[in-house]
């Protein structure tokens, strides 16, 4: 190829990359509907306000339907699993705030005051009924400390691990960027923007030795009708649950239910967390999710996909490689060099 042409092409793709990164930064801020946090501000090295947003995002849900566990009447894969493969993402908000998912990051300045609580999506904590985490006093003190430190870090642990492209762990990976669910005989695989999670559908396969602690834990699961039931052990607790700083310790275990609607369009995650080191009782986190099927809905956050190039008649949705750490120079700006 003509080397000038190649240079031009490269410059062009760099431009596109830059625009994409800038746009996704704008989207991050817009998503929380508040001013960027201190952690974001610090890392921004050039003005991004002028970058045009890519696509309009689906409006955030303020409430979501309950999905009952029961029979699966939708399509199945050859091995009998309900076919739920595809691109999925959360519907009510991201990892900014667990107990008030549309209330912005705790302790952050707001452009407009928050209205009454009932106008926003419910707490992700669905049990206990008050929507609060049943922390032991020492743990609550740590969370409060994090919520202050998040805006003005004085200790490395005040940095939200996702800002370093650490894996999102359980459950944060399900309300960060959109993700891919893949299914194979014996496996359900989640591919996230920074890491993946392999769920072994063989409960006779023992968990890894207790000593091994992993960001995404070690998962064994099985299908009960429309529900994927998963037992998570070996979780290292390091990912935290979000910018509001809640966490489990490395002693925590999680019993998960992914309850799929029979039309295949959405599922609700119900994860019961048990951790006597940090909490006074088990609690449940509920996360609604929807499936994305159209490239036109690519919005730099929930979906980053395109229609594949091919001569066939059917449209095929595909996703770029998912890279985070290597390109991370403070929330995606300034590709890391050496």
């Amino acid at each position: 190829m003509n080397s000038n042409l190649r240079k031009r092409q490269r410059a062009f793709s760099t431009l596109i990359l830059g625009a994409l990164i800038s746009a996704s930064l704008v989207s991050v801020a817009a998503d929380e509907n508040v001013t960027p946090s201190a952690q974001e501000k610090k890392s921004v090295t050039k003005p991004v306000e002028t970058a045009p947003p890519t696509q309009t995002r689906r409006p955030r849900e303020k409430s979501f339907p309950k999905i009952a566990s029961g029979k699966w009447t939708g399509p199945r894969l050859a091995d009998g699993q309900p076919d739920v493969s595809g691109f999925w993402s959360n519907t009510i908000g991201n990892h900014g705030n667990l107990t008030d998912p549309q209330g912005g990051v705790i302790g952050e300045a707001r452009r407009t005051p928050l209205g009454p609580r009932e106008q926003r999506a419910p707490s992700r904590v669905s049990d206990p009924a008050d929507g609060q985490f049943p922390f032991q006093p020492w743990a609550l003190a740590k969370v409060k400390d994090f919520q202050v430190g998040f805006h003005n870090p004085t200790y490395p642990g005040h940095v939200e691990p996702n800002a370093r492209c650490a894996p999102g762990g359980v459950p944060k990976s399900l309300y960060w960027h959109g993700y891919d669910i893949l299914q194979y005989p014996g496996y359900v695989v989640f591919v996230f923007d920074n890491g993946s999670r392999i769920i072994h559908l063989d409960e006779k396969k023992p968990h890894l030795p207790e000593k091994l602690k992993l960001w995404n834990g070690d998962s064994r699961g099985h299908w009960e009708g429309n529900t994927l039931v998963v037992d998570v052990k070996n979780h290292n607790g390091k990912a935290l649950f979000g910018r509001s700083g809640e966490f489990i310790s490395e002693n925590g275990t999680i019993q998960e239910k992914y309850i799929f609607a029979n039309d295949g369009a959405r599922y609700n995650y119900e994860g019961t967390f048990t951790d006597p080191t940090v909490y006074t009782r088990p609690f449940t986190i509920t996360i609604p999710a929807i499936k994305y099927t159209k490239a036109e809905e690519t919005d730099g956050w929930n979906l980053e996909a395109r229609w594949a190039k091919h001569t066939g008649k059917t449209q095929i949705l595909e996703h770029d490689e998912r890279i985070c750490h290597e390109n991370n120079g403070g929330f995606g700006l300034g590709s890391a060099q050496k």
Partner: protein
Amino acid sequence: MNTLRLNTLQRYRPAKFKKVGSALLLLLAVFTFSLVAPSADAHDNKKIPRLANGKPDFSGIWQTTSAADYDLEPHSNRKDAPPGPGIVEGGEIPYLPKALVQRKKNFENRATDDPALKGYTLGVPRAVYYPEPFQIFQRARDLTVVPQFGHSVRTIHTNNTEHPEDPNDWWLGDSRAKWEGDTLVVDAKHFNDKTWLDRSGNFHSDALQVVERWKFLDPNTIEYKATLTDEQVFSKPWNISVILHRHREKNFQLIEDYRYTLDYDQYYPPKPDQK
């Protein structure tokens, strides 16, 4: 004479009995042969795992036993590597003179500059012969390659789709494959220039193109061959070849290795006795 008696006996044996007898003999011969040469089955292509569509099914956890990642080229032992004959066809990588200078610089600085030391995506083809297991998940439309090392997952498309019209420079490139009989032929390009080919500093530019050939030698062994082309760095295309073995240990599984988190993971989660 014994021989004579045997012949006589045979002559008077009813035809039906004779048939059963030779069938038994044949069975015995097959059994004996299979005992002597248990690998005979291995060359039977019908025995390799296949998807419902009849294509070879590479699903499983794989790893090379070669020392390729230490240095693709022939090398004596050194403090940070075992000796190895290399996996480059013809011995050495045909670097352009300018690129050879860079390669030597990389080698001198390998203890700090190897991107893998930072937990970076290994790239293609390095992720194939890096000495940690990787798992292939396969459907008719694609292969998803999940390495134990690092966090990024490679997709090899097998659904007649083409390289995109507006490519980026990707860490893993863009992989489109076709079947040539039972061989998976992958065309991978649109790479960036940030990955190395091994820990000794062999490298490439963003003009790299890798054509891979994946083929079962037997149900538990894959022969992996690749041709690397990069006119910015190499004077001509060159070939590598490694063997990949299936992990058959009971309950063997990948264990995530997100090594890039090690510098800070001690600060999480909060603990009662910690600040």
